[in-house]
């Protein structure tokens, strides 16, 4: 299943205001044919606030074009970064591709918990 040529996906990351280092992936956003699909990692309490900030970005694709330097301060000094995916996960629709990327992030951020 091939993605359409104008489909683009980005990891959403947050940066520690103290260090300026990206701390974690908090979501995935994608665009295709003027549509946008956004999916946050679960249990991110600030997701709604960040979503508002993203909605305020008028020309999303233009901002994204500058890749990781594209970032916006959303609140409390938190910087939301956008990291483009070279090869988005294959899916028949944009939502599927974004959710597949979220799945990748889910399995990439497993905690090192010990059963007690």
């Amino acid at each position, binding site marked *: 299943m091939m993605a359409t040529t104008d489909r683009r996906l980005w990891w959403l990351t947050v940066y520690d205001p103290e260090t300026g280092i990206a701390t974690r992936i908090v979501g995935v956003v994608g665009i295709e044919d003027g549509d946008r699909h956004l999916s946050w990692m679960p*249990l991110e309490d600030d997701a709604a606030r960040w979503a508002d900030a993203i909605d305020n970005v008028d020309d999303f694709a233009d901002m994204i074009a500058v890749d990781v330097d594209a970032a916006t301060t959303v609140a409390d000094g938190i910087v939301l970064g956008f990291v483009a995916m070279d090869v988005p996960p294959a899916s028949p629709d944009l939502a599927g591709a974004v959710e597949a990327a979220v799945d990748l992030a889910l399995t990439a951020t497993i905690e090192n918990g*010990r059963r007690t």
Partner: protein
Amino acid sequence: MGSGGQKAHEAIAIAPATTAGVAVEDLDASELYEMEATGALDDIDDLVAQLGPDDYDSFVEMAESLAGEDFELGDDLPDHVKDLKDTELKALTKAYLTNLSVPELQQLASDHGFEHPTLVGLSDSDQHPLVHWLDPAYPDDLVSKTKIQAKAIERYQALQAGETIAGLTAADIHAAEAGLGSQPPGAPSWELWDATPSEAASAMADVTNQASGLSALTYSDKAAGVAALVAAENKLQTANCPELGQGLDEMKASAAQLVTLHTKQATIATTSDALHEAGLLTEPEAKWLSPTEALAAARYASGANQVGDLKTIATDRAKVVAQLQTHMANGIGTAGSFTGIDTSTTAGRQQLLETINTTQEAFALTTQAHSWGASDSSAVNLATLHSKHIANYAHKDLSKDFRTWAKTQKLADLRAVAATAGLADAKTAGTRAEIQSYLAGQWDTTIDQAAIEASVKAKAAAKNGIPATATSPKPGAPKPVATTPTPAVVAASGTATTSGPGRFTGKLGTLTAKLKAHQQIVADLPARTDSASIAAHNWGEGQPWSKGSHESSLHTGPDGSQWMFKPDKSAKGARAHAEAAASDVFSRVGVPGVDVHVATIGNRAGAIQPLVHGASNLEGTPSSWSQADVDSMVRLHVAAWAVGDHDGHTSNVLRSPSGAIFAVDQGQAFKFFGRDKLDHSWQPTGNYGTPVYHQAYSAQSQGSLGSGVQVRAKAALPAIKAFEAISDTQYRKLLTPTATQGAKHGVHWVEPMRKAAQKRLGKTKVTDAEIADEFLNTAVERKNNLRTAFANFFGGLGVTDSQHLTWVK
């Protein structure tokens, strides 16, 4: 010491080999290295790949079991050692789950309460999110697991709102998950369905009608009426109707309330059967859940978690019943189960022990089964079970029959079994009645085991002429001889053969047993006392402990505990230096042994060591030794060879109270330097008893080690590496007092060292200093050659992994 069988030890004085971290760290580093280097983990992966979803519960049990072991290991072990077991478990569970197909993962997840498992794992990634969610090596409440479930629910809600994801609609998900169910085969499928508003209303009406008609039914029809009501409710609860929106949810809540209200008074003994006949429960669920539990398990409204839990309970109970039936078929719990057992043989004693253990298990299972009935007194199937099984065969009746049978057995043999079952001092004290009662008390809860233990302990103490609170052996008294491992050791070795999905479980079990053995020895033995404290301490005159050729006295040590002093009359302190040096060497290389120091008390030089209570002799039958035991013996051999001690027979290898083994009495250390050989057949003339490691090697060649236990060259590696870590200068310094004192007093090793020095120096006469130097050269050379020497030695014995010593650095 240890020059003959006539002599007994004056005392048992033990100390830890070293700090816990060093010994355990080295051992486990070797273990991990070996597994990685030899591809053992790959082998395990291959094995795991052959397993299917049915093996999942075994992994869960293993994870839970090992988590419990963590608790037992306590805080003494470094975190990275604790992590070892955790790491290996995670590698195994991940390998297993990764090899399952996506439908299998989804089915397993559904069975274990995951909602909408088809809505995660949308990428083509190698690791499916459900692999992590199902992984029993990680705690269930881990945030990363919670996130996976949260995302699935979020996506389902999006679909319900009319969105599509990856081309899928809510209807597609309903269809895909209809076949999953969260039930074992035979249970209702609870197929989700798309209803029109009128179909949903009709389903609600059916629930109302069934509920209102329930009270009018006769008693004999009531159970079927409840089943029909539940079926109607499930129909409504599984409906999906976006058009009704929240109205459908309100309808479902109302129906659930109605059903709960009407079934409360109508649930009777036969309800379970009726639910099964209506296809709402499997037969085991109907049989082993109480009617109240069965009703909850049959209702979709109970929620996936509760239903899943109840189904698991039913499955577990069915297993218990199956175990009980097996015990019944084997006559366990009846007087006949002891008939034919002859405890005059080792096999007979083992058979009795196994029968006792199985009986204990059978009664425990029966007690467990009784508790099900307690949850609902109308559980007719449970009542049926109880009447058919051994619950009605009272504990004390069996005890009476057992005593009758036990009278036909020799008391000494029963004592041996009781000792193995955990009764301290059973070998030397206790009446026949007490011994028999103690054994019966393994299953008979009316017998006061603690009272018997206290009585036997008091009698043993009185017999030894010491207060009941002290357990040190009387001077000259023989060490208690155990014929089988202590319970702790049985448990540890048994872990390796725990039932489960094959070899990988055994592998983990072996590792766990090994860690546990080290933890045991660390917990049992007092900390080693530094030489400065020994030298600075005023030992006082002390109290006489034994007289004659094995004269000794008791003193209060720097730590306030009792220490035993043995004057070195014949060698004027040289032998004490040798024994103390050997003790120091053992300590440095992580081989548990006696904490011996040199002290001068009353103008007499000698060896002094702390007394430690509760140790017993090692059982002399290799077939009963665990893998941890044999591995410990291999390391003991390395240390013993390095210090030239060939006296490690069963009287000089003891078990700590927790069951780990350690060496005592290096009184022969260095004695045969220059004459001895690293050879399975070599033994000093006149020495009593074969060293335990040579016994193990012989048993291996004769196939008489325990099942699954083997001599492993790699077990020697931690000790060898520890020796290699000691610099030559440091080693010479450590042994210099032994060398100079030995040369000065002309001990046994002086003559071969004199000849070697003469040859090396090309002189016909050499000084004591040159002889001492020759001794030190020999010791250092032996230290540095351990790896090659043991590789050759094990190679000569045919030990399969002997090359391990030469290529693992």
